[in-house]
């Protein structure tokens, strides 16, 4: 009978063979050891330098662990060395796909600290650009989401066509397409150029039939349904408990939107609605984003119609020193609840500058969403959460 050490001898002899072998046995669910695959920092569908260590049993994901920090520029430390106005360009670089919302959130926090009253025209302009930024960011989010499902960039390029028009408008007003640095404490940096409103009018005129195109092209697509329905599902209770926010939270059915709950910049004057999903899966997030773009267009329509005139910037001394105290202002950015927590000690620079990153916090539930699905589902789920690595790592 083969004694225990006999088999051990055979195993040692085999293990040296294993050394010069190439890849450990791929499992087929019969219990042999799982494969750990690195969806590494350099991967076409991780939306930036973001690493997901996925432990796979065959194609089924057993564990998904995030390794981040590749884009960590320690902005919160740098901001403590610069005055309140000098920090504004930092906020563009935190979430470079929604720079306007970041500027807005930071300026609201700074204004709360300094007790500055923003003139109505500036508030309307801020709402206009925040909503334009939402349209552009959702175009990017939906485009890359479908790209992760495998469509060869075609929907992405359709949506980039609209995003281009929005970025041209940004360039028209503040000179930059992505890192706009347009808002100042107490208002906005420049007044609207004359050619902006006509372009915005033509943009609003074209968009409805463009959106109809997307709905025709994508909503009824059987393969997109098969790939995205029932994938990356999360329950409303777990979503609220893991502090998810934005389209990811609304897709689960929780109707929470800061623009309605805690209106800033005069959002209460505009009449719009908050779309809410039902199952909380990837396809619902996609639908919620598509509906939100339509709502943003409604708001833009009303902003253009009721744009007040008057000063676009309150007269805030360039070197204002706020009273010691703290402020926490929150904005509904395209990715979720973006907050800025500023602590002032009376000095020219903020004593503590903290940004609540919706992308990072939305990732807390990534493990619950992707475990159990296949590797392809994990990629689609990651795409549907719509993360921006600049905001995760700050």
């Amino acid at each position, binding site marked *: 009978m*083969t004694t225990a050490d006999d*088999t051990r001898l*055979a195993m040692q002899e085999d293990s040296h063979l294993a050394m010069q072998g190439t890849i450990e046995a791929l499992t087929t669910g*019969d219990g042999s050891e799982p494969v750990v695959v690195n969806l590494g920092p350099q991967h076409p569908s991780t939306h930036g330098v973001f690493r997901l260590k996925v432990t796979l049993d065959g194609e089924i994901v057993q564990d998904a662990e995030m390794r981040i920090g590749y884009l960590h520029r320690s902005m919160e430390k740098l901001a403590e060395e610069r005055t309140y106005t000098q920090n504004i360009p930092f906020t563009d670089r935190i979430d470079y796909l929604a720079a306007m919302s970041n500027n807005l959130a930071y300026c609201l926090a700074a204004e709360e600290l300094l007790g500055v009253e923003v003139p109505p025209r500036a508030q309307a302009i801020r709402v206009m650009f925040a909503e334009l930024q939402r349209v552009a960011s959702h175009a990017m989010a939906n485009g890359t989401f479908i790209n992760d499902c495998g469509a060869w960039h075609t929907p992405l390029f359709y949506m980039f066509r609209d995003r281009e028009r929005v970025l041209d408008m940004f360039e028209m007003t503040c000179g930059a397409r992505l890192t706009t640095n347009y808002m100042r404490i107490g208002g906005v940096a420049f007044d609207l150029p004359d050619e902006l409103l006509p372009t915005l009018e033509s943009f609003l005129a074209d968009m409805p039939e463009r959106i109809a195109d997307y709905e025709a092209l994508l909503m009824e697509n059987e393969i997109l349904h098969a790939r995205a329905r029932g994938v990356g599902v999360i329950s409303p209770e777990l979503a609220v408990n893991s502090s998810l926010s934005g389209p990811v939270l609304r897709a689960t059915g929780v109707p929470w939107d800061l623009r309605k709950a805690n209106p800033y910049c005069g959002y209460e004057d505009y009449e719009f609605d908050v779309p809410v999903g039902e199952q909380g899966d990837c396809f619902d997030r996609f639908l919620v984003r598509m509906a939100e773009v339509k709502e943003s267009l409604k708001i833009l329509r009303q902003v253009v119609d009721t744009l007040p005139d008057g000063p676009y910037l309150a007269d805030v001394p360039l070197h204002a020193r706020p009273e010691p105290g703290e402020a926490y202002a929150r904005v509904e950015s395209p990715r979720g609840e973006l907050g800025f927590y500023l602590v002032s000690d009376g000095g020219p620079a903020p004593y503590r500058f903290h940004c609540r990153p919706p992308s990072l916090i939305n990732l807390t539930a990534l493990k619950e969403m992707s475990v159990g699905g296949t590797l392809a589902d994990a990629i689609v789920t990651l795409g549907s959460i719509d993360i921006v690595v600049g905001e995760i790592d700050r």
Partner: protein
Amino acid sequence: MIIGLEHYLVLGALLFCIGFFIALSKKNAVGVLIGVELMLNAVNLTLVAFSRFGTAEVALSTQVFVVFIIAVAAAEVAVGLALALVVYRNRQTISVDRTTLLKG
């Protein structure tokens, strides 16, 4: 010099013996199956040689016989590999000389 029946028969015999040796001497179950496949191939080769050089009525029946051998060989490999898999699953080894449970 003409390539005749004997050439193919010698070739078939050689292939059969190589397959036979592999089947006997390999430690791994899949290795044994490879040996068996080679032996079957050798047999097919000789049969087709007969069908080409043999008399008229034997020509067709040998080719049909070869088709049957290929079918059975495919079935045999499928079952053989499934057996190897089950042996591996229970004994963690598919090397032929260590699965000696029945030796007693």
